[in-house]
């Protein structure tokens, strides 16, 4: 009876300790994040882009996919704020519509990569032995491929389209996440509180979900923020060489590649999608960087 009570108590304490640590960690991180003006501006911009992506269809003054051949390649004007494209479509509306697709692709592709990476990394780090060896080899092999070329080959086999972009990016870019999570899980596995939970009789699944994954959360958030720009840029490239979104839909990459032909005659055409792409990437990079410093103060103090 005494044993039983101790065990529950110990387990409660271990569980509690985690909860305390977590709230403290995130509150602390937020406090540190607030002190960086660059991070706040970046966060604001990301919020703005997300807003555009969600409410885009209600904000576009013209139908982004409907052209008027009478007003082809016009410079910015009162009716067409960013001018018109080669089919007389409103560039402003298309940039907003493209935001939705580009951001969606970036986030979803990265979430897929993250999910695979976290699962693989946790399995490898937690179980070790031959499972770890197998997964580590797979990671090594996959990261030996030239990323874009291999992704293109996958796209060629599967055909163009958004879903296939997800598969191509997701299948290839989980390796970095897995490597990081594996290392972290291996370290956490031998930490005192996991030992304590183990000694208290917690089973492996509950250790993984209650202790290991929550503790990797800050790493996961940072990776997500920092890798989204990469995925967005990959989409840009796919669309550029005609492997991405199908016409007439707009994405930033698609617009960039279409505008290339008209750089001399309508230089403003390419500016806006490129600018928004650059600012979004800059915002994600800046925010991710600040987030990492905020969540892992040890890194900064060094």
């Amino acid at each position, binding site marked *: 009876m005494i044993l039983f009570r101790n065990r529950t108590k110990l387990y409660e304490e271990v569980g509690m300790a985690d909860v305390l640590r977590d709230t403290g960690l995130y509150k602390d991180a937020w406090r540190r994040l607030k002190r960086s003006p660059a991070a706040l501006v970046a966060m604001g911009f990301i919020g703005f882009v997300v807003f555009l992506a969600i409410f885009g269809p209600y904000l576009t003054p013209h139908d982004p996919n409907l052209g008027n051949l009478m007003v082809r390649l016009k410079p910015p004007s009162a009716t067409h704020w960013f001018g018109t494209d080669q089919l007389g479509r409103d560039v402003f509306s298309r940039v907003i519509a493209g935001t939705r697709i580009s951001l969606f692709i970036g986030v979803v592709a990265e979430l897929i990569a993250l999910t695979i990476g976290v699962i693989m990394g946790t399995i490898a780090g937690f179980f070790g032995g031959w499972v770890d060896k197998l997964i580590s080899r797979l990671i090594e092999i996959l990261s*030996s491929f030239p990323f*874009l*070329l291999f992704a293109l080959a996958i796209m060629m086999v599967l055909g163009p389209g958004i879903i296939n972009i997800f598969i191509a990016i997701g299948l290839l870019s989980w390796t970095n996440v897995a490597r990081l999570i594996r290392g972290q899980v291996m370290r956490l596995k031998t930490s005192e509180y996991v030992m304590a939970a183990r000694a208290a009789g917690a089973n492996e699944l509950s250790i993984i979900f209650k202790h290991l994954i929550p503790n990797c959360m800050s790493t996961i958030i940072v990776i997500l923020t920092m890798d989204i720009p990469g995925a967005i840029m990959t989409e840009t490239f796919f669309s550029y060489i005609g492997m991405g979104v199908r016409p007439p839909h707009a994405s930033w990459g698609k617009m960039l590649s279409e505008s290339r032909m008209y*750089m001399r005659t309508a230089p403003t055409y390419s500016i806006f999608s*490129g600018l928004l792409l650059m600012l979004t990437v800059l915002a994600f990079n800046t925010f991710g960087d600040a987030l990492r410093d905020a969540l892992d103060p040890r890194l900064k103090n060094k």
Partner: protein
Amino acid sequence: MLKYAMERILQSSLVLLGVTLITFILLNVVPGDPVLIMLDQRADQLTIDRVRHELGIDRPLPTQYFEFLKNAVRGDLGTSFFKKRPVTELLSSAFGATAKLGLMTLAVSLCMSIPMGILAAVFRGSIIDRAIMFLAMLFMSLPSLWLAMVFQLIFGVFLAALPISGSETMRHYILPVAILAIGYAGGASRLIRNNVIDSLGHDFVTTARSKGVPEFFVVMQHVLKNAAIPIVTLIGIQLRSVLGGAMIIETIFSMHGLGRLAIDAINTRDMPLIQGNVVYTATVFVVINLVVDLVYGLLDPRVRLAGGES
């Protein structure tokens, strides 16, 4: 060191085996019939059968794989279906441009990022540090595709100072190298800064200062030699990613490199050429990794003298 090197070489060969297997599965097994991808739906059954036989894919898959492997070891990656020339020949003629582009990019980006990283680290927290880090972040965030278009417009069209297509003379390389190097210098200078800061915090730096070593040599000898170890890894990663990522730039600037060859192959659905290109580039990657690991071993006495473990 010898044991360490042997182990690395063995590991690399295993990775290469995995690379060929996955490529083979992707291009030959996943689509069901690769010939259908190559020929579209229009081809009649007779043509399909002829091409099948030509490519040797009417034989069982394991036989095909071993045949492919056997030939690959001999340096034969098959014949381009579209260009009717040996894949190896096409690849090696394109490799020159890509390698030149890659090495020049690496050199330029290191020339930018090493001083930037060291300066930022030494003056950590100051206005210099902040300015350099903002610049680095900006460099990292510039989409190379867009930057290439803007540079072409400015330098090629408005100023008419530099050629914007082809890879014949060194002048053709200026814009592509500049665009790629800017992108890589951003990430690299941040990494170098962090490594130098990391090394500056070590006790041996205090020891060196207490010996009366001038600050310049503290940074250039004690700190940099320690920070050099991760920088070697960085060089490897960069070289790999330039070789792999040069695709975008090669296409935009119509350079005759591996990346452009790959995109041509994909556009014409030239399976043997795609397969060869993936395996070839992956081999180059693996070799770069191997070299990085070996140099790493040479730089770090703890690895060099430890023998086996990695």
